[in-house]
């Protein structure tokens, strides 16, 4: 089964660069965590066929980010993907979600796939909208929030993890699936696999290569939330003394 895995090169939210606003351009990129689960699932399901990664670069500055995105993709290749496609185009930096989905779908159409796997949501944006958007663009069914996946005879059986219940659904392939963190345990690549990944192809594409154009960018401003906590740390004394101190503080605050 030929599989496309959607990999977001996301802002590393544990290393946000913050001044008056969030300085997106100086914040490093990393693989969006749950996309590792999507990669793992693809490696398990692909069988004799190929699985490839697709990234649309969203955060600028373009030139410097290309190198960072390649490093992220190497990680996914080391986990077992065969090839990667990096869509890097000035017009896609801070682009609308509609444009991002259009670019992703264009790569899938160009390369072909029986299944598209994505994460349930990204660490930086956390919206879960790209998988259904890509499905709409391709005209394929979408199954979101999947924590168990089986493929049997051209059909896909999935357990969807919803708020109050688990729903088992069946859809024909091709389809788009978004997975949760609980679906599997992503592998840690071996040194050998990391070295082998250096030789796997990363294909760079522009909008012109894909033959599409996109709508204007979206305007957004990011204001950091300054959370000032008191950060009082009680570390000396016996457990008894520490407990007493904590209780005193909480009483002073009037919360117990």
């Amino acid at each position, binding site marked *: 089964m030929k599989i496309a895995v959607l990999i977001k090169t996301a*802002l590393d*939210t*544990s290393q*946000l660069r913050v001044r008056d606003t*969030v300085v997106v351009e100086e914040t490093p990129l990393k693989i969006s965590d749950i996309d590792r689960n999507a990669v793992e699932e693809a490696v398990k399901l692909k069988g004799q066929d190929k699985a490839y990664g697709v990234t649309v670069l969203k955060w600028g500055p373009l030139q410097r980010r290309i190198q960072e995105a390649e490093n992220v993709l190497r990680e996914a290749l080391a986990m077992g993907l065969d090839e990667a496609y990096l869509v890097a185009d000035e017009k896609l930096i801070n682009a*609308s*979600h*509609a444009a991002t989905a259009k670019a992703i779908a264009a790569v899938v159409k160009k390369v072909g796939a029986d299944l598209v796997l994505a994460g349930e949501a990204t*660490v*930086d944006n*956390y*919206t*879960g*909208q790209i998988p*259904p*958007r890509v499905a*709409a663009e391709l005209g394929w069914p*979408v199954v979101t*929030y999947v924590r168990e996946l089986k493929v049997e005879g051209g059909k896909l*059986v999935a357990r*969807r*993890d*919803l*708020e*109050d*219940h*688990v*729903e*088992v*659904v*069946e*859809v024909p392939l091709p389809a788009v699936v978004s997975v949760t*963190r*609980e679906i599997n345990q992503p592998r840690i690549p071996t040194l050998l696999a990391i070295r082998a990944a250096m030789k796997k192809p990363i294909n760079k594409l522009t909008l012109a290569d894909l033959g599409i154009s996109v709508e204007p960018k979206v*305007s*957004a*401003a*990011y*204001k*950091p*939330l300054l959370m000032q*906590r*008191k*950060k*009082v*740390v*009680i*570390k000396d004394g016996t*457990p008894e003394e*520490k*407990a*007493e*101190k*904590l*209780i005193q*503080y*909480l009483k002073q*605050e009037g*919360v*117990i």
Partner: protein
Amino acid sequence: MKTLVVYPSKELLYVASTLGGEVVALVFNEGEAEAIKGKAHRVVVANVDARLPDAVAEAAAKVAQGVDVVLLPSTKNGKTVGGLLAQRIGAELIVDATSLRVEGGALKAERYVFGNKAVATVEVPLPAVATVPPGRFQGEPPAVQTSVEKLQLDTAPKTRIVSVEEKARGAVKLEEAEIIVSVGRGFKKKEDLQMAFELAKVLGGQVGCSRPIAADLKWLPEEHWVGLSGKKVKPKLYLAVGISGQPQHIAGILESRIIAAINNDPSAPIFQNADYGVVEDLYKIVPILINKISKLKGQ
């Protein structure tokens, strides 16, 4: 101005009314239509299975013609329908909007981003789609005259629901709790959580947990799960026990008045996000706390 509400609730209809103009609601059976009579100008009853996002998005796309804003609840199916619909009508989708208004032909909204470490102010052209988190907006939609109409679609959904299993649910309402004792992977066995329940009991609070406790280990039902992908809580005291304090957990407790933490690792990130931290083995200190606090309360 015209707003379409899919999966309408009182809250969503209220938000729609604040945008002004006509409010259209899309529902999937007569009972739902009856329930919102008088709260929307038009109610459209579509003959599709409300549990199938593909089918709901198709119905919504039909009704969305000439609509400026589409509102949905921030549920998993709500967000899925939102993404499908937004792509079909070439619109932007703002997920988990914490404020919304229409001005000069654009939808202006705020939402938390970057693991809830920043607020984004976004402005997108109309038509636009947005999802609204539960409990964020409170108000009554004004009483209006309602007309009800039917929408017949002959869709053949590709998705088939094979079975549905209810998840275990109790009576936990973490969003309303004043005190929360929250547990993480610092607990070694499921039985040990009993300590946290006891501590919560003497404090008059409820028990929360990190994602792995509910999702991976399944030691507690998901209604206890706090964080970016779980409940957003705002107690006066949040006591994190054996929780490392990853940004995705912190994202759910930002609005707590006081955060306290117990962790045996002095470099655990939770201490950077807490008002009061205790570096100690939870197995040693929690029993002492239970003892001392119950005496205190007994006085």
